[in-house]
């Protein structure tokens, strides 16, 4: 038998030491680095970070001892050095020792972990409550104490995703309308979903809670400093799971109150404007329709209306979009239960609904010439399902 021990000289040991050292160095890089867990912005997130680091170091020490002994043996107890094998094959004492010591180490880890966990799961006595609902592929936020609710969607343009434009700094991390929260208040999040399971994850709050359809999970945060905190959906939820960011804009309580007032005023204004709106022209409808379609519908039905065969139907040339207008309106307003087709009646304004349906009936060669007006939408909405 040839011996290839030359390949394994002392360098090996060095490689190993280097590895452990670099792991430590990388992980210990300043908070917020691109290589380690964030320290975050709440008391609990700091605790989680510390827990993570302590356990990481314990693991490094265990690794160093175990691998150290092994490599010592590899270097010194090799046949090429004339070692003769010992014949021992057991020792009850040492077996007991290396069963007991790990148990003690584990107990030492479990105590702080349990304490932190129990604190994290106590969402009682909150100052305010937000209902967070995930759906394919956007987040909906509802302030339980205020008449405010809205959707929050990825705002990165398609062009950047498809490499037709330069990617900006916030590539895939920005939304059209962030969740706004105050500092210093205990905020309770009720997390749920409309369709599949999503998971609401904001690393800076050390919060990751699954959004299970039909159930509500509770979690909470008390944020120390104003700032913008970013996260992402953390449960595979279908095609665009990777395109479902979360942005939380945290303001001082005063600034927050001001924001609330502004929101309410704006909503009133928009409602009034919509009510005052009469007939829309084809150009108006088509223009608004295209924007809505591209932001809200194209994720499934694709920008050319061709759909994804087997998953999402084509609208280009489809029966509904070229012939049966009432069915088309009904489909968009109320969706189709137990499919990915959501009810958009509550998500969009009447003008937007009218526009997007008009657009679908006239784009990509679906030249029906039909116009859908706000009044038709309102009639269909009040007729109900």
């Amino acid at each position, binding site marked *: *038998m040839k*011996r*290839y021990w030359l*390949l*394994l000289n002392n360098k090996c040991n060095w490689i190993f030491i280097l*590895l452990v050292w670099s*792991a430590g160095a990388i992980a210990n890089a300043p908070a917020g680095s*691109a*290589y*380690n*867990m964030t320290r975050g912005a709440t008391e609990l997130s700091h*605790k*989680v970070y510390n*827990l993570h680091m302590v*356990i990481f170091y314990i*693991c490094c020490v*265990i*690794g160093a001892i*175990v691998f150290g002994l*092994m490599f010592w043996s590899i270097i010194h*107890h*090799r046949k*090429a050095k004339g*070692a003769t*094998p010992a*014949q021992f*094959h*057991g020792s009850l004492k*040492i077996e007991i020792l290396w069963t007991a010591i790990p*148990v003690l180490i*584990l107990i030492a*880890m*479990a105590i702080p*972990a*349990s304490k932190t*966990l129990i604190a*994290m*799961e106590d969402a009682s006595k909150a100052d305010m409550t937000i209902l967070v609902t995930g759906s394919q592929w956007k987040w909906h936020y509802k302030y339980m104490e205020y008449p405010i609710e809205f959707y929050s969607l990825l705002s990165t343009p398609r062009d*950047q*995703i*498809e*490499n037709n434009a330069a*990617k900006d700094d916030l*590539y*895939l991390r920005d939304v059209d309308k962030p969740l706004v929260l105050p500092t210093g208040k205990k905020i309770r999040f009720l997390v749920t979903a409309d*369709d599949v399971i999503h998971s609401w994850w904001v*690393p800076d709050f050390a919060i*990751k809670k*699954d959004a*299970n*359809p*039909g159930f509500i999970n509770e979690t909470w945060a008390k944020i120390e400093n104003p700032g913008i905190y970013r*996260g992402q959906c*953390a*449960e595979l939820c*279908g*095609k665009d*799971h990777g*395109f479902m960011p979360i942005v939380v804009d945290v303001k001082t309580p005063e600034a927050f109150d001001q924001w609330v007032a502004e929101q309410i005023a704006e909503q009133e204004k928009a409602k009034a404007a919509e009510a005052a709106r009469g007939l829309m022209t084809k150009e108006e409808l088509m223009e608004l329709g295209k924007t809505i379609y591209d932001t809200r519908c194209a994720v499934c039905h694709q920008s050319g209306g061709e759909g994804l065969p*087997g998953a999402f139907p084509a609208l280009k040339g489809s029966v509904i979009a070229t012939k049966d207008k009432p069915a088309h309106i009904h489909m968009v307003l109320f969706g189709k239960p137990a499919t990915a087709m959501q009810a958009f009646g509550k998500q969009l304004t009447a003008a937007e609904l009218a526009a997007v349906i008009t657009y679908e009936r006239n784009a990509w060669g679906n030249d029906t010439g039909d116009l859908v007006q706000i009044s038709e939408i309102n009639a269909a909405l009040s007729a109900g399902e």
Partner: protein
Amino acid sequence: MSQEHSQSIESANTHHADDAHDHKPQGFSRWFYTTNHKDIGTLYLLFALLMLFTGGSMAMVIRAELFQPGLQFVDPHFFNQMTTVHGLVMVFGAIMPTFVGLANWMVPMMIGAPDMALPRMNNWSFWLLPCAFTILLSTLFMEGGAPAAGWTFYAPLSTTYSNDSTAFFVFAVHLMGISSIMGAMNIIVTIFNLRAPGMTWMKLPLFVWTWIITAFLLIAVMPVLAGVVTMVLTDKYFGTSFFNAAGGGDPVMFQHIFWFFGHPEVYIMILPAFGIISSIVPAFARKPLFGYESMVIATASIAFLSFIVWAHHMFTTGMPVAAELFFMYTTMLIAVPTGVKVFNWVATMWRGAMTFETPMMFAIAFIVLFTIGGLSGLMLAITPADFQYQDTYFVVAHFHYVLVTGALFGIIAGVYFWIPKWTGVMYSERLGQCHFWCSLISVNMLFFPMHFVGLAGMPRRIPDYALQFADMNAFISIGGFLFGLSQLLFVWVVFRCIRRKGEKATAQVWEGAEGLEWQVPSPAPYHTFQTPPEIKSGH
């Protein structure tokens, strides 16, 4: 085993090992109708290699897409199919069948049995696998594509919101399940019933022990998987609502049932590798295995614990705190028996007389890298920290360390260790070492940085990512391609042996190896033990 004794068996056997005595059927009927454990073992191994490359090619698609931010090669829907099918093919097509193949080859030889206990069923178990994977992979060419809900196929993404492939996936899993259950039954019955006289329980090689326990796990949890996919089927096609709150069910119920299967499943993929390492380390340390009994007890404890830790995959699903604490503690406990195994291997090397042929190199790499994977597993078990790790690349790093540098490296070590026995020729040591170093370096380039992108916040199962992860991902992808290319070397080494290119191997093959399989000539005759061998000494 005294030296003279093994020599005498050796010469006696070499004398008889004339191929003419072997009555080997040829051609089509040999491979399709066979009842021979070695032929079936070979079929399993070749099939698994094919699947490793299939799943590996999908991993290459994943890594190519993730090389840079932005959508480059595939659309997100197809990306999800790649992730899903990669996981399924690797788990059910590559790792598990390889272990069954190794068991088929080695278990009868190690315990001195003439063949497997139920040889025809053995053949059936194998041929179900190509059937199952034909069904599964055919969905890639269907409208709507392959399953895309992850290898864990969480409902309702896999039920209400899935495409037509679901039914194909479900029936494919049923066939895989039938195959695994029958395979496991066969192995367990063989070990219980066909040991040569004198081959007492505490003389069994550890590979055999780990396989008994693995087989038990398989029989216990594969039916549960069959049950849960059946519920997926009825939820999607027959209007049931097991996983639908509107009907009184719960999507999280899916996860409980799935992980009741899924967690023991990951030990199914590692225990036989523990067995292989426990055979290799003593052979090259020329020293008996340290703590044989504690190895057996540790394996059994791991198997037992594996049934009560499943919900550590579900810490973020919103379980009651008491349940979270329970599953955290039980999960952490698994570190203890696993630690015993690691320490025993180190103690076996301690004061041995080691040489470092390729099997030993892979075994050493296994011990180090599996332990790294195990330690990251322990970090994941810490529930509050898991809230930050869950569904990020930190998890991906963890499970590739235990699966690729654990299970797969264990398998590769085993193949180098036993291939002289199978083919009768030594593999090329030069190529073997080259394969080892290329794999070792590239695999760490591939999976080590994943820990850090994960910690920094990159979720798994995404086709595109934010800019701060770009450099790391490019590096990871390069590691991935290099690792993939390195495996071509492996195939080359194996095929050289199959084509009998290389030094002729002796019966003993390795100076320090012990056990019945090293007493029959190399290549092992078509029918090994016509009469039971005599078992003289310990393990």
